C-alpha cells in the first residue's frame, strides 16, 4: 500500500539561548495508508516532537515530511493551518476540550473551518458522537463528563472532519485502566472499521499491543 506519511531524514533541534539542543537525529519513517503505528520510547526521547512534525504544528530543522503527497514544509503558516484543519485529527493526553463549550460544540469546532453548512455540520457531529457512543451526552460540558468520556468527545472532534490521519499523544496517559481500554478499543475500531491511519505515541505497553506496528525512539534515534 502507498505511504501516507513519509518522514525523510528529518532532524530537529531546539535552541536555548545560543545552545543547540538536538532532539531528533536523522529520522526516516514511512507509514502506509491504514496503518496503526505505535511510537514508544523513554520520556524525553522526542516522541511528541516527531508527532508534532508529522501533524504540521512544528517544522523540522532538516529533512522533508510528506503527508498524503503534500510536502508540508513548503506550506506557509496560514496554508498549513488550513491543511491541518482538513487533514489532521488531534487526540491529546489531557483531551484539550474547550471547557466553555458543550460536547456538541467541541466536536463542531473544527468543522467551523470547513465550508460545511450548519445542517451538514450537525450531521457530521451527530455521526461522530454516535461513533464514540456519546450521542446522549452532546449537551454536557466537559466538566460534567468522566475522563474517559472527555477523551471520547476529543476523538469525535478529531474524526468529525474526516481527516487523512489521526495523531494521538499518550491518549490513555491520564486514564484509569478501564477507560484506557475503552479508548484503545475505540481507536482500534476507527482503524479497522473506518480505515483511519493512526500514529499513536505511548509508553503504555498495553496500548502498544493494539498497534499494528511499534517503533521505538531512543535519544532522538528511531530503532
Amino acid at each position, binding site marked *: 500500500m502507498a505511504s501516507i506519511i513519509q518522514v525523510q531524514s528529518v532532524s530537529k533541534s531546539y535552541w536555548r539561548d545560543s545552545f543547540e539542543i538536538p532532539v531528533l537525529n536523522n529520522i526516516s519513517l514511512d507509514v502506509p495508508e491504514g496503518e496503526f503505528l505505535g511510537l514508544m520510547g523513554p520520556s524525553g526521547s522526542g516522541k511528541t516532537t516527531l508527532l*508534532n512534525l508529522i501533524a504540521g504544528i512544528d517544522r523540522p530543522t532538516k529533512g522533508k515530511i510528506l503527508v498524503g503527497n503534500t510536502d508540508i514544509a513548503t506550506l506557509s503558516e496560514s496554508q498549513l*493551518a488550513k491543511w491541518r484543519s482538513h487533514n489532521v485529527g488531534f487526540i491529546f493526553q489531557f483531551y484539550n476540550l474547550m471547557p466553555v463549550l458543550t460536547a456538541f*460544540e467541541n466536536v463542531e*469546532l473544527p468543522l467551523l473551518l470547513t465550508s460545511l453548512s450548519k445542517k451538514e455540520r450537525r450531521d457530521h457531529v451527530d455521526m461522530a458522537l454516535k461513533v464514540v457512543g456519546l450521542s446522549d451526552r452532546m449537551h454536557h460540558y466537559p466538566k460534567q463528563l468522566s475522563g474517559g468520556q472527555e477523551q471520547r468527545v476529543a476523538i469525535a472532534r478529531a474524526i468529525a472532519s474526516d481527516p487523512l490521519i489521526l495523531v494521538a499523544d499518550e491518549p490513555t496517559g491520564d486514564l484509569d485502566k478501564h477507560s484506557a481500554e475503552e479508548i484503545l478499543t475505540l481507536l482500534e475500531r476507527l482503524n479497522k472499521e473506518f480505515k483511519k491511519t493512526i500514529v499513536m505515541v505511548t509508553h503504555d505497553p498495553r496500548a502498544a499491543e493494539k498497534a499494528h506496528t511499534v517503533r521505538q525512539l531512543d535519544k532522538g534515534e528511531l530503532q
Partner: protein
Amino acid sequence: MKIPLKYTIRNFRSRPLTTGITIGGIALVVFVFVAVLMLSSGIRKTLVATGSPDNVMVTRKAANGEISSIIMNDTYNVILSLPQVATDSGGKPVATGDVVVIINLPKIGTDGGISNVTVRGVSPAAFQLRPNVKVVEGRMFSLGAREVIVGSSIAKRFEGAHVGGTVRFGGDTWMIVGKFEAGGTGFDSEMWGDTAQLQDAFARQGGYSTVTFRMTSPDQLDAIKKNFETDNRLQQFEAKTEQQFFEEMSEFMSIFIGALGVFITVFFSVGAIIGAMITMYSTVANRTVEIGTLRALGFRRRSVLAAFLAESVLISVVGAAIGIFLASWLQFLTVSTLNFGSFAELEFSFALTPDVVFFAFLFAILMGFTGGFLPSVRAARLNIVNALRAS
C-alpha cells in the same frame, strides 16, 4: 473562519469575580465620564430651552452678554419700526426692552456665601414673548412699583427670596410679590420686575440692555439680519434668535465642563485600562493550552486575536452599560452654579442625551480595546507547540 462568539461570551461569564471587578472599574470611569457630560449637556439644554426660535434678540455688538449691552431709546424705536416685527391685535409691537442687571444675594446653606442673580426688567409684552413664564404663587408685579417676582430656583436657593420677602438692590428695597416658573429654563434663575423701575433705580432711563421681539414669521430672520447690516443706525447692533443667544451663553460653561470631564476621565481611565489589561493577561495565561489547541485545529492567529479582543471589548461594553445606567439616575438631580457665560447663577439638571450615551460607549470600547490589545497580541503570537506543552 472565526472562533464562535459563544466561546467569547461564555469565557467572559466563566470568571465572574475577576471579570466583575474589571467591569466595576470601567463602570466607575464611565459613570464619571457620563456624569460630567450630562452636566455639560444639561447646561446647554437649559439655555437652549430658555430662548424661543420665533423671537429675535438684539444686543450691542461690542457686548459679550446682556449686562454689558446698551441700546438707546432712539435705536429701540428704529428696531420696533422694522416691518418684520409682529404686532398684537391692537397694532402694538410684540416686543420687550429688557434692562438686565446683576445683584448679589446670600445663598441658602452656604454660611454667608453670596452669588450673582440676574434681575430682568421687562415690558408687559415679555410674558407674551416668553409664554413659559407663569406666576405660580402670589401675584404679578405692578407697573410703577418697586416690586419683583422671583424664579422658582431663586426662591429655593437664596435667603429671603420668597413671596412676601424683600431684597435690597439699586439703592432701594424691593417687595417680592410673586413667584414664577419658567419650565426649567434659565428664566427660573432670574428675578423679573418692571423695566421702567429698573431703568429708574439704575439710572438707565436712556435705554435698555437688549430688545427682544416676535418675528412676523420665523423665515424673516435673514431679512432682519440684512436690515442690521445695511441700516446705518443699526450697524453697531446684532440680531439673532433668542434661542441662539441663550445657547451661546451656555457655550463657555458647556465646553469648559466637558473638557474638564474628558481630562479627568482620561486620567481615571488609565487605571481601568490597566485593570482590563491585567485581567486579559491572566485570561491568556490561564488559557494557553486552549489557544494552542485552537491553533492546532487550524484557527488562525488573527482569529485568536479577534476572540480575545472581543472578550475585552465585551467587558468594557458591559461596564459602560452599568456606568450609564447608574449615571442616568442623576437626571433627577438639579445643580446651581455660576454660569461664566452670563456671570449669574443658573440652575440646571443633568441631561442624558443620545450623544452622551454614544460617546460613553465609544470611550468604553476604546478602553477595552486598549487594555485588551497587548494581551490579545500575546495570545495570537503564542507558538503552538509551546502552548500545548503548557499543560
